[in-house]
């Protein structure tokens, strides 16, 4: 067959297919009684302008929180601001969009060129980080609805021992790593799926969300802000930014009189005590330990990366394609199960098992390489955390720990030095 004939035949085929597609089993009737055909309604989603207004509200709340924490030193201001945040971003906006979840949008948009991040999500991700770089974690104090709901329910905070705080502080890093890995591979958004408070904001949620939310709130009455301190993946980023912030909330407006009132006011154990004057200068053991712990960091990175990349088979099962292909390979008899929706949908899609397995392999490969990054990152953080334990820093006063401090302002309220 010549090329021209082929093209003509192909053209005819296309026309036939289109005619067939336009034809319906039952042609539309021609009515004689003057029946007017209704058209389906299409209620509009929230407009783009309103979405941008959310960004403006966030900017305003962040600026106000910063002003209250750093300039006017008003705990009351921050408290009422967090009530506003809870009502606006929580109950009115139903907890979506939030900066914590926006991590995943950014991760997905960086890994998948086909996904275009919305400006709102990007602004929600960037603004609090930039504020934290200059003013500390004022976002946590007043602009985060998840923080606000926990902060308002602190009843009897108990102090946790440092070893527990430091080791539980690794959980958010693992959570952040997993969230980025799962988002970047297009698997799922785990931060949103396991957001404990979104169900409370919506007053309507699946069972597991309600249970999680209530459990966190009950725990939060005693262990203050449990989600923020031991789970929040965005808190990890804010923590780093805040450590290098240009300005930060200070407990006293002038000189510290070392009355210790602030330490009992802080429900988050985020106030560092002054180092003892009589402490001997660091000796040889100190330097030896310092060098040992620094040299251990690359080891931690390698071990972390190795473990995470080796566990790709388990992690990648969260992806639909991998899950389905493994199911089909290990349980081929399920093909005849009419109740297995995933398999039935796959069979009717006309895709072959080979292409599915190929897709799954690509995803698994992504998990393998991503696992190195994720594990290495977690290892790095563990290594640096350990190194920080042996680093000796001299402090004269009671100072907020810049990483852990949420800038909630309780300590300034308690400080007897007023000007």
């Amino acid at each position: 067959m010549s090329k021209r004939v082929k093209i003509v035949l192909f053209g005819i085929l296309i026309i036939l297919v289109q005619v067939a597609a336009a034809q319906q089993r039952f042609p539309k009737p021609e009515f004689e009684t003057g029946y007017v055909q209704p058209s389906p309604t299409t209620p509009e989603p929230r407009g783009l302008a309103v979405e941008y207004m959310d960004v403006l509200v966030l900017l305003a709340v962040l600026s106000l929180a910063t002003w209250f924490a750093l300039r006017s030193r008003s705990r009351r201001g921050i408290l009422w601001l967090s009530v506003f945040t809870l009502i606006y971003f929580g109950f009115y906006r139903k907890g979506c969009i939030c900066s914590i979840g926006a991590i995943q949008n950014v991760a997905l948009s960086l890994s998948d060129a086909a996904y275009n991040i919305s400006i709102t999500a990007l602004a929600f991700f960037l603004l609090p980080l930039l504020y934290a770089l200059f003013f500390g974690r004022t976002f946590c104090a007043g602009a985060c609805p998840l923080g606000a709901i926990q902060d308002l329910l602190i009843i009897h905070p108990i102090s946790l021992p440092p070893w527990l705080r430091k080791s539980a502080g690794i959980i958010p890093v693992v959570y952040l790593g997993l969230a980025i890995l799962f988002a970047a591979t297009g698997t799922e958004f785990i931060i949103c799926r396991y957001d404990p408070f979104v169900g409370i904001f919506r007053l309507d949620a699946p069972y597991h969300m309600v249970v999680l939310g209530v459990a966190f709130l009950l725990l939060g009455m005693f262990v203050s802000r449990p989600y923020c301190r031991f789970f929040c993946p965005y808190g990890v980023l804010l923590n780093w930014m805040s450590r290098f912030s240009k300005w930060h909330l200070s407990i006293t407006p002038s000189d510290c009189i070392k009355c210790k009132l602030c330490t009992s006011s802080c429900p988050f154990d985020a106030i560092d005590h002054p180092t003892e004057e009589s402490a001997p200068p660091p000796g040889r053991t100190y330097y030896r330990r310092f060098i040992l712990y620094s040299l251990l960091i690359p080891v931690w990175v390698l071990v972390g990366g190795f473990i995470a990349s080796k566990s790709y088979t388990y992690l990648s099962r969260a992806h639909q394609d991998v899950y389905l292909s493994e199911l089909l390979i290990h349980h081929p008899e399920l093909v005849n199960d009419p109740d297995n929706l995933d398999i039935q949908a796959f069979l009717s899609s006309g895709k072959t098992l080979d292409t599915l397995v190929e897709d799954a392999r690509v995803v698994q490969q992504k998990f393998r390489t991503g696992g190195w990054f994720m594990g290495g990152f977690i290892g790095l953080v563990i290594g640096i955390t350990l190194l920080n334990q042996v680093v000796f820093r001299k402090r004269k006063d009671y100072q907020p720990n810049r990483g852990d401090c949420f800038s909630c302002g309780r300590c300034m309220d308690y400080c007897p030095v007023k000007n």
Partner: protein
Amino acid sequence: MKKNKRFNRRDFIQSSIRASLVVSVGGIGGLALKNSTGRDWVWQIDPFECNQCGRCATECVRNPSAVKCVHAYDICGYCDLCGGYFIPGAVKLDTGAENQLCPTAALIRKFIEEPYFEYEIDEDLCIGCAKCVKGCTSFGNGSLHLQIRHDLCRNCNECSIARVCPSKAIKRVPSDTPYMIKGSFTKTTDT
């Protein structure tokens, strides 16, 4: 040597780390922005990919689901024996509950003229179970189909139905074209 009190070594390290953090945060923002089209996104069901599995009724974070059946009247055949309305082998073609496919009687059958009937959806009753959609697609024109209603949808960052949709029919669509209603929306061929 006199110590420079206004700018010591620690401050220098702090500000250089801060500067590099600003640059990296800005860099991430810039890279993400490069792909952005300035549009907002909402979730919608592609009716040509939907296989009426029924998960829309159970997996939505809202109860009842934000997914409702929509009727594209334009392509409806106004059949008396409607595959979306009646159970297969219905005893009688009337509005008796035992003959209806819809579990909540959300599909309203109205006589227009001999032999045509109009089918309207009561959205307050519809739970998005897709039983009628399956019937209409199998035996009729496929004018009944599911759509996410944006007055009900919470526009979750990741749609919890999309996560488990077996045919991957739920997609992000630009918020200025938030619906894929059959008739005006036709099957895309470039997939």
